[in-house]
């Protein structure tokens, strides 16, 4: 069923746990649209042919007498209500409600920061805790406003290569933010998109299910380099991820400069 929907709707291949539910909703909505459109079209084409002036020189001022259309409109409302209550709202609650987030200890927690025109990924390092920051500390050499006094930040890893690496089959919690303008973090195969808004840090979560490399698209116009603000999400197997992580050298907060 999942592969069928992906092919039918021309979607990017699916590589996340929750994406199947989302695809199914997309499929049902398109099914409703298709049925309505075909119904309208058949009625429309037949009517236009049947009641053309040459064939029907005298119009009937009453026209349709039945109440079928009212029932049809009621049915549309009912189906929409089912899709809304049965699918859309629960799906959103699962993704957006903080109560439903996985336990941080069993997830890969990262921070993703958009900047004209690339993506920055931050990892908490071995202690699993990010160093504190404060907007007052922001300067050209410390764009994130990190606190150099905070010991938790000493082993934090900052990657400015527009590459984000995560292990497969383990929830990823990504806190999305931006340094300058509004960007949007979108990975189609993961079925996630979240605006990166300066001044806000918004958490999302998803569980990658397939090892591979996926495009990160900036989905919000962010300036003249918007079209080139590509990132890559690499999903590795657990051992490969550990090996990769071990090779990353922590960059103490605000020590190494910015550029």
């Amino acid at each position, binding site marked *: 069923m999942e592969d069928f929907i992906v092919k039918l*709707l*021309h*979607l990017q291949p699916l590589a996340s746990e929750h994406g199947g*539910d*989302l695809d199914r909703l*997309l499929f049902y909505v*398109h099914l409703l649209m298709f049925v*309505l459109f075909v119904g*309208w079209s058949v009625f429309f084409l037949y*009517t*236009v042919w049947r009641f053309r*002036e040459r064939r*029907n*020189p*005298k*119009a*009937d*001022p009453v*026209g*349709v007498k039945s109440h079928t*259309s009212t029932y049809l*409109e009621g049915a549309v409302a009912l189906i*929409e209500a089912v*899709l*809304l209550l049965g699918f*859309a709202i629960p799906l*959103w609650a699962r*993704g*957006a*409600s903080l109560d439903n987030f996985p336990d941080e200890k069993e997830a890969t927690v990262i921070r993703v920061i958009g*900047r004209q025109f690339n993506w920055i990924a931050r990892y908490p390092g071995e202690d699993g805790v990010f160093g504190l920051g404060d*907007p007052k500390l*922001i300067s050209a050499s410390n*764009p994130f406003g990190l606190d150099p006094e905070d010991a938790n930040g000493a082993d934090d890893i900052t990657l400015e290569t527009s590459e984000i690496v995560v292990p497969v089959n383990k929830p990823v919690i990504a806190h999305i933010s931006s*340094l*300058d*303008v*509004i960007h*949007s973090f*979108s990975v189609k*195969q993961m079925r*996630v998109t*979240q*605006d990166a*808004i*300066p*001044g*806000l840090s*918004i958490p999302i979560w998803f569980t990658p299910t397939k090892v591979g490399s996926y495009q990160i*698209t*900036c*989905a*919000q*116009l962010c*300036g*003249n380099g*918007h*079209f*080139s603000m590509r990132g890559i999400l690499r999903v590795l197997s657990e051992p490969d991820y550990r090996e990769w992580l071990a090779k990353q050298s922590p960059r103490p907060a605000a020590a190494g400069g*910015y550029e």
Partner: protein
Amino acid sequence: MGKPIANRPFGDGLMSHAAATVASATGSEGNDAHHDSGFWRKYIFSTDHKVIGIQYGLTSLTFLLLGFLLMTLMRWQLAYPGEPIPLLGPVLEKVLGQGMAFKGIMSPDLYNSFGAMHGTIMVFLAIVPLAFGAFGNYVVPLQIGAPDMAFPRLNMASYWVYFMGGVIMLVSFFIPGGAAKSGWTSYSPLATIADMGHRVDGQTLWLIGMVLLITSSLLGSVNFIATIIQLRAPGMTWMRMPFFVWAQLVTAFLLLLAFPPLEAAGLMQLMDNLFDTSFFLPTGLVVSGNPLAVSGGGSPLLWQHLFWFLAHPEVYVLILPAMGIVAEVIANNTRKPLFGYKSLVYSAMAIGFLSFIVWAHHMYLTGMGTKISTFFQTTTMMISIPSVIIVTTLFISLWGGSIRFTTPMLFALAFLPMFGIGGLTGLPLGFNATDIQLHDTYYVIGHFHYVVAPGTIFAIFAGIYYWFPKITGRHMSEFWGKVHFALSFVFMNLVFAPMFLQGLEGMHRRMYDGGATYAAAGGIEGLSQFALKLNVSISHAAWLLGWAQVPFIINLFWSIWKGRKVESDNPWEATTLEWATPTPPPHGNFASPPTAHRGPYEYSQSPAPNGFTPQNEPA
């Protein structure tokens, strides 16, 4: 024809006070002053609603063409990224400077400028002024049997403020740095920092232009509301008003109530841009490696709320008058009353009301919690119901008719399935979960263009072909009208239908290279070559769509002077009051004050074949 009555109060109870106001405003120099008023007062600074309607029409059609031209240039860049634009490339380089189009190649800044201005021009300078300013002004007073708008001078002011707004938008292309380049949505902080090199930049002029355009809409909307409430002819009860008038009334309320927040927001963003305030700028912005020297503390999301509080009702400002035009043309060309007139009216009102509480469905991905997003997607699903009712009602109205396939009718008929596609594709965008995948992709572009281009613009074409004989006393060519229709219909669909496929595959809008950066390559999954190739076919279809408008433009101007003359004041055998005027209607409109004796669509009620009973015919 009798003497125009503009300078004479009707004296009827319902109308006397307001009509007297009109009379004193339109002809303060005394009786028949309009006969010898000079060229300037008659054609340029006229207070006659019909002249103002035509002014709105011609100006906004020009902007429609300009907005389309911008898009044809963008489509070159999307189809053939980085190649010089043939013919017009060197012109752009010369006029806008090397930085914008070096060697005729469109720069990313120019692409973003054209993108922002295409949207702005199409929405605020072309479609709204056409649907509301042109048709509303010309037709509404005639259909309700009024001698003019309630406030003719306000009406003139509305047009000229609109005109100034348009000029400022045009000027912005030629200032250093070029026109606004942050999308028609102008999200902060990008809108404020996109052109840091210039204190007064394209965005500054965009905001000043928008403030003028919004002011113009406000002036127009109070005038429409006063006119429709106060100046209806005797007997023109609410439920005898043509649906077009209802659609314009609801539209006027949307304009009146939705536009002020953006006017305020526009001034706030202007302060951010010019005087370094931080209404929409948060603390801690670091641009190009340097902390921005502003106090911060503002909210970028506040701008989005204020913008979409305007811009969602705006969608219905674009579509309701179009539905009104289509309803008129369908009733006339099926020779039968509309099915479910009352449900049309109530649905239009429901849409008007609901359109104020759906705006944040444009903002699902800004980090919205479950409760808020549940509210907005529930209201979004609710608003789809009256829309479905209107479309279904218009479809059903065809049943039992005696359908004449005139040019206006062809456009009106095509409107139905085209708007149907536009409306239906709104559903997966209205559900927040599916919007995750489709937000800001070409699916969205396809969706709202189906609503506005083969939707509203087709309705506008229908209206032009339909009311042209009343306005000029001549017919447009039916043959060339049908050629225009057939070609437009085919190419519109070839342009917009493939966008749904691109969008489902994940191609995003506003990409300077048409998404080539995001193509699948080197083991990284991404866009297929098929999706990119569609860019080429869409562009060619768009250019052909442009050529398909040539017959229309020639037909329009040729027919003004050379078209077949109308044989009567009512060439379409219509029932509504605008056809009871002399042709073209003189200043003051009606030969004698009309009275409405019946509903608006009494077709085929008499035994004669295709008999019809005009509204002003006594019982």
